[in-house]
């Protein structure tokens, strides 16, 4: 069977590096304009970690202003007279900060980390392919993301500064320079995101084609590792959501530059149309930012608990359900926008329903570690933190889904707390888990576990000190995107809490340096990684670390699902997907996960 498969199922076998065959590609082809999905994944990793640091720095500036309003940032003079004279942040710069923090984190850090890095790293290896379906398109995807990022950074340095209409860029504020005081910056913001959209689109086309067409023999849909399911559904969401954003951005750009009036009411434009278009993209985007994280966490939890994932099928269907429901809930961002209240009631119902698959996932993760054999390695710690934090983010979502309660908490710090519990407590902990987990596979060296544990502990503590009190700020009525809360008398008593949050935020930021140090140090000095340091089942762990160009020397054949841990009757508590059952003893033959 396997010989037939090599020929019929996988002609890209011709790409495969032969063992011992010297890799004679030039440095440029190997590391810069590489078409190797692993290298592209690493490129995305470096790029998005840089943007994560930039976004984090912007957050520090925001927290400085909120913690100590109107005082000079030590050394803040370098920001320039137009932004922060003498180190004191100006309101217009503050608006740019909140806008660009959101933009960088969502579009240039979390999204490329989850989709760009783990999509590239994992898809071909997990499904047993030599590379992506379209390797050159893959390279183009990365090299399109780079100029998009550069344009976004450049917008800080043009006259009028960077975009300042919020990451949601509500028109008319975003469309008319006289309203925001931002000129070229807002246009560059649109252009950058349009360019980035092309990058995402190329990635999505590649991922979908690869997952559908290039699975190794025996890699049935219901044997796919959950990260691949999540990335597959995510790619579909990207594919269908990004073009809507691109369309909306183009209309906005025309309003800014060509004198059209799509979103400008004096000439019949519809400001709410921007919101509908934006959130029609924006809500699937929310799931683009969390589904892959859920997939990574499932993988790590099952591995760390040495136990099959609880309810694999329910997990898959939960992902699919979230992706479908994600298209009919966008209006819950607009309950207070002036949209018809009856329509709001409809959106409330669909939004409430989408809480159910998320609940299923949380309970199934609990089921996974129940009666497990839990190894607290660094990826596992981060994955457990994901579960603990995602619960908070998910539950706080119920408050804003309830339309009457949303009247109060909409656009307050409660929302800020919620989004950060999902995107930081959720996605970012999953990303940390994923990086610690797969770093050895792609760089050939282990990350230092002691530094990893210190980083995790400090991040977990300071993270909660930053974002948990934000719920309270919101419940006391503190709005988002307020340059100086003390303008409002009723917010003056909130200042101590704001200062506490800012102190914790600065410490949280500082703690990330441990990760950076660990990352860089481990690249060169880390302990050499064995092929399978976590005793994991999926296909990439059968390969050397790092895998050779072309990945698999011989076509792998898959005999079972990826979560066959602690199977009774086997000496080892793991069972690689490509290990033929004959070696494994007959006791478990015919059981679930084993080909009948």
């Amino acid at each position, binding site marked *: 069977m396997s010989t037939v498969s090599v020929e019929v199922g996988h002609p890209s076998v011709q790409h495969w590096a032969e063992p011992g065959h010297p890799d004679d590609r030039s440095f440029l082809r190997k590391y810069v304009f590489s078409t190797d999905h692993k290298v592209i994944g690493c490129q995305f990793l470096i790029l998005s970690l840089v943007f994560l640091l930039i976004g984090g720095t912007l957050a520090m500036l925001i927290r400085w202003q909120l913690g100590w309003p109107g005082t000079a940032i030590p050394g803040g003079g370098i920001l320039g007279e137009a932004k922060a004279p003498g180190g004191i942040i100006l309101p217009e710069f503050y608006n740019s900060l909140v806008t660009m923090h959101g933009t960088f984190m969502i579009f240039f850090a979390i999204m490329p980390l989850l989709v760009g890095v783990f999509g590239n790293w994992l898809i071909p290896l997990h499904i047993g392919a030599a590379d992506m379906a379209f390797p050159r398109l893959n390279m183009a995807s990365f090299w399109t993301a780079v100029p998009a990022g550069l344009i976004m950074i450049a917008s800080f340095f043009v006259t009028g500064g960077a975009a300042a209409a919020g990451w949601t860029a509500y028109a*008319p504020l975003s469309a008319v320079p006289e309203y925001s005081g931002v000129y070229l910056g807002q246009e560059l913001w649109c252009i950058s995101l349009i360019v980035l959209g092309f990058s995402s689109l190329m990635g999505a086309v590649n991922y979908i084609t690869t997952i559908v067409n290039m699975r190794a023999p025996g890699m049935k849909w219901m044997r796919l590792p959950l990260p691949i399911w999540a990335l597959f559904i995510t790619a579909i969401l990207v594919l269908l959501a990004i073009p809507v954003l691109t369309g909306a951005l183009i209309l906005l750009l025309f309003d800014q530059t060509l004198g059209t009036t799509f979103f400008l009411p004096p000439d019949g434009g519809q400001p709410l149309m921007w919101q509908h278009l934006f959130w029609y993209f924006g809500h699937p985007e929310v799931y683009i930012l969390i589904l892959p994280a859920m997939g990574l966490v499932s993988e790590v939890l099952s591995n760390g608990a040495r136990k099959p994932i609880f309810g694999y099928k329910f997990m898959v269907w939960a992902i699919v359900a979230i992706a479908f429901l994600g298209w009919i809930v966008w209006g819950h961002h607009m309950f207070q926008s002036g949209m018809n209240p009856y329509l709001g009631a409809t959106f409330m119902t669909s939004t409430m329903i989408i809480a159910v698959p998320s*609940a299923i996932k949380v309970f199934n993760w609990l089921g996974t570690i129940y009666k497990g054999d839990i190894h607290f390695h660094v990826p596992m710690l981060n994955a457990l933190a994901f579960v603990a934090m995602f619960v908070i983010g998910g539950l706080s979502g119920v408050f804003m889904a309830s339309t009457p309660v949303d009247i109060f908490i909409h656009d307050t710090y409660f929302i800020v707390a919620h989004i950060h519990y999902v995107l930081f407590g959720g996605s970012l902990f999953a990303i940390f888990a994923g990086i610690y987990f797969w770093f050895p596979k792609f760089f050939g060296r282990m990350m230092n576990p002691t530094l990893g544990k210190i980083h995790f502990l400090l991040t977990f503590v300071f993270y909660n000190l930053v974002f948990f009190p934000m719920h309270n700020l919101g419940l006391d009525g503190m709005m988002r995107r307020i340059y100086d809360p003390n303008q409002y008398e009723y917010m003056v008593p909130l200042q101590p809490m704001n200062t506490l949050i800012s102190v914790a935020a600065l410490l949280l930021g500082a703690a990330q340096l441990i990760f950076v140090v660990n990352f860089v140090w481990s690249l060169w000095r880390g302990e050499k990684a064995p092929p399978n340091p976590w005793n994991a089942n999926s296909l990439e762990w059968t390969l050397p670390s790092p895998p050779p160009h072309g990945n698999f020397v011989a076509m792998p054949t898959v005999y079972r699902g990826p979560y066959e841990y602690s199977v009774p009757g086997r000496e080892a508590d793991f069972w690689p997907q490509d290990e033929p059952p004959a070696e494994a003893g007959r006791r478990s033959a015919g059981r679930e996960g084993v080909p009948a």
Partner: protein
Amino acid sequence: MNWNWLLPEPVSTFGSEIDSIYYLILVITAVIFVIVEVALVVFMVKYRHREGRRAEYSHGNTKLEVVWTVVPFILVMVIAWMSMRVWIEAKVADRGHVSEDALPLRVAAKQFEWNVTYPGLDGELDTADDFVKRNQLHLPVGRAVRIDLTSEDVIHSFFLPDFRVKQDAVPGMVIPVWFQPTAVGEYPLGCAELCGLGHYRMRGSVTVHEVEAFDAWMLQEGQDAAVETPAPADTAGVDLEAASTAPAPEGNHPPSHQPASEGKERA
């Protein structure tokens, strides 16, 4: 520092109903939160790795999974059902629950101020005795108020935290807002939607009077407005910088005159 999860005292009729849903959700989510987090910690401790122990080999339990699919579904549907009625009551201002004698007001938002048009003594808008106050909302207690909310430039959000009122003001749209104050006092009014560089100080005050006091106030202000000749310019805009530290600016504006302000002052 206020670590409790209580909302500020509500001072509108539907405010306490909104709060009761909030507290219901708070209780439900708190219970789920505690269950999940405790289970997580207990499992972590109880099933930590020890030599010679093996994890149980199980792929799940369909019965359990159906339970935790159905139970959350029922819970959220109950919450949605309970929310629905209060939502319609709070947000729909053109149905029977808003009394006929509601005080009609017009609030026009612009960068960065709230202009409130009062009907004057005749109780009707668009008549000669209308007058405009900037950043000041004066209301009688125990009487519904119905506001036509508009914006002249960008999207603002009309936020009265104590009344549980929040509604975006959208240029090109007139959005009805209603509520009924239940307690006399001074309350904040703020802008909750990023609207430009002065967003953070686009605030005003709400003063809820006893009915007689409100009538007297309306009478006084109406007369002042009638006496005051339409000035070619007013102090608005000039004191915007001062406004960032001083209390909310006050002033009378004859209705014929757009309250002047360059709006988007640039430093």
